[in-house]
């Protein structure tokens, strides 16, 4: 564990001794801050005169401000995240330091957990920025602190899932830019598919009658699974409910499983050197 910590620490030191780290954190802070200021102002305007904005009574803060804002922060990570994860393993390869990493007495788990830990460390810095915004909400409104804390946890879980996917992609390539682009593409495609999935009809429209009743049922069943996958698989879908403070075990389990799954694949990717090389 000490070795993993050493790897993690080195990664964080490198991240924050180069301008890269400050550019990434600064950009995130600027955009998240703008997003927060805009939606908070908008929400205040609505509470002053709900009728004018087309609302009956004052809308719920969780639904109208916190959830969309947290989702926005999560989606922002879709753009910033690849810049964090793309370097993790790909850069070790391109700089040749992979040769050091793999000849020091490190186990694969030290490398994977060290790198993932570093990514989470950077995420925590980004979360601190979001935390400040949520603290402002907490101070000036009567929303329950638990809801805000759970919102932050949601964002963290979502980010961890993002990072695990990015780390996995980074483990397969030598070029950091390739890793970044592929990671972004995977996240963005899943996002688009999720949006598109919501407009899919609940059942397939016209199953030809001559296929028979059972075939029709089978097609309907498969369709159901397909639709469910398209709707449930994208990374931001589950956060939507969670960010409103609705605790559902399956949402939390989704992010944890997603993370574990891609960390597992990262192990396999590192191990592949034994049978590929």
């Amino acid at each position: 564990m000490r070795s993993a910590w050493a790897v993690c620490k080195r990664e964080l030191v490198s991240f924050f001794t180069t301008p890269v780290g400050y550019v990434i954190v600064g950009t995130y802070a600027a955009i998240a801050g703008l997003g927060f200021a805009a939606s908070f102002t908008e929400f205040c305007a609505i509470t002053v005169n709900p009728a004018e904005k087309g609302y009956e009574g004052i809308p719920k803060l969780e639904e109208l401000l916190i959830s969309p804002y947290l989702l926005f922060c999560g989606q922002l990570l879709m753009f910033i995240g690849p810049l964090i994860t793309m370097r993790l393993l790909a850069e070790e390869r391109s700089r040749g330091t992979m040769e050091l990493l793999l000849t020091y007495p490190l186990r694969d788990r030290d490398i994977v957990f060290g790198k993932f830990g570093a990514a989470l460390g950077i995420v925590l810095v980004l979360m601190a920025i979001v935390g400040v915004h949520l603290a402002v909400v907490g101070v000036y409104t009567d929303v329950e602190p638990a809801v805000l804390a759970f919102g932050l946890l949601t964002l963290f879980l979502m980010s961890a899932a993002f990072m695990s996917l990015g780390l996995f992609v980074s483990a397969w390539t030598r070029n950091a830019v390739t890793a970044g682009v592929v990671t972004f593409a995977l996240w963005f495609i899943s996002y688009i598919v999720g949006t598109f999935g919501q407009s899919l009809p609940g059942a397939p429209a016209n199953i030809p009658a001559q296929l028979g009743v059972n075939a029709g049922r089978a097609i309907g069943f498969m369709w159901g699974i397909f639709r469910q996958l398209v709707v449930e698989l994208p990374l931001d879908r589950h956060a939507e409910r969670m960010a409103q403070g609705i605790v559902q075990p399956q949402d939390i389990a989704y992010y944890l499983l997603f993370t574990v799954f891609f960390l597992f694949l990262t192990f396999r990717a590192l191990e592949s050197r034994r049978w590929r090389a």
Partner: protein
Amino acid sequence: MIEVSGLTKVYGTITAVQDLSFRVAKGEIIGFLGPNGAGKSTTMRILTGFTPPTSGVAKVAGFHIEDQPIEVKRRVGYMPENVPAYGEMLVRAFLRYAAEVKCVARGSLAAEVDRVMSRCGLGDMANRVIRNLSKGYRQRLGLAQALIGNPPVLILDEPTSGLDPKQIVEIRQVIKELAPEHTVLLSTHILPEVAMVCERVIIINRGHIVAQDTMHNLTGGDTELLEVEARGVSDAIVSKLSAIPGVTTVETLGNGRYHVSAPRGSNLNEAIIAALAQGDCGLTGIQRKRRTLEDVFIAAVASDQGAAE
């Protein structure tokens, strides 16, 4: 300390290393020679656990490289060829990281880093950014990170490449001083360096060993070689030279040149002069020949190349 038997590494259709077998005893400094692409770096990468062998067995410090990789890595200090390092880090921070990863006890981290830096002459560079180091200092950094944790086995891939003459002498001295407690396997292109530093040499070409022996034996061992130049009938000269007591072989090189070998220390000059003074032949020159490592290397590689064609 290092035992290799039947080591083979195949990359797709290219055989980088083929059926390599050798042993390195504790405290030895072994020179690993070979032309570019002979398989030196591949062998070193296998021994350090960076790439797995296709077949064959290798043991380092008694541990099997594939079954107990961590045990092996704990006992091996490795300096890769181009000295990869994290450019944005400070020298001290990088070495500290290496020490942490190599499980140096927490209390002695700073002392270990200082020890290695002073040993490699990096003391003045402790707070420099690695990216800004000159080639020579970067090379020292590579050696320093290998020495961290005082591993019993050191595998150094071209430790002196790209250094200026003064630095080469310094680094050689560092390596020489490692000898009794450490086992060193080093590769290099600089043949005189091997002669100066190593006790034993392994020459490889096209992935297999073409010669391995001690420096003493490779450069002639206990025989002494004289090149004699004489005018006259060659058969007569050969018989006269062969008749001299102590001469083991006489070789005709043509153009009136002959190689005479005898046990080291025979001091035959006088006898040769006397032998060739009689009759119809004139001695025109005697020269003591030393077989250099260069001769051995070129001969070994050339004969292997010839065998391949």
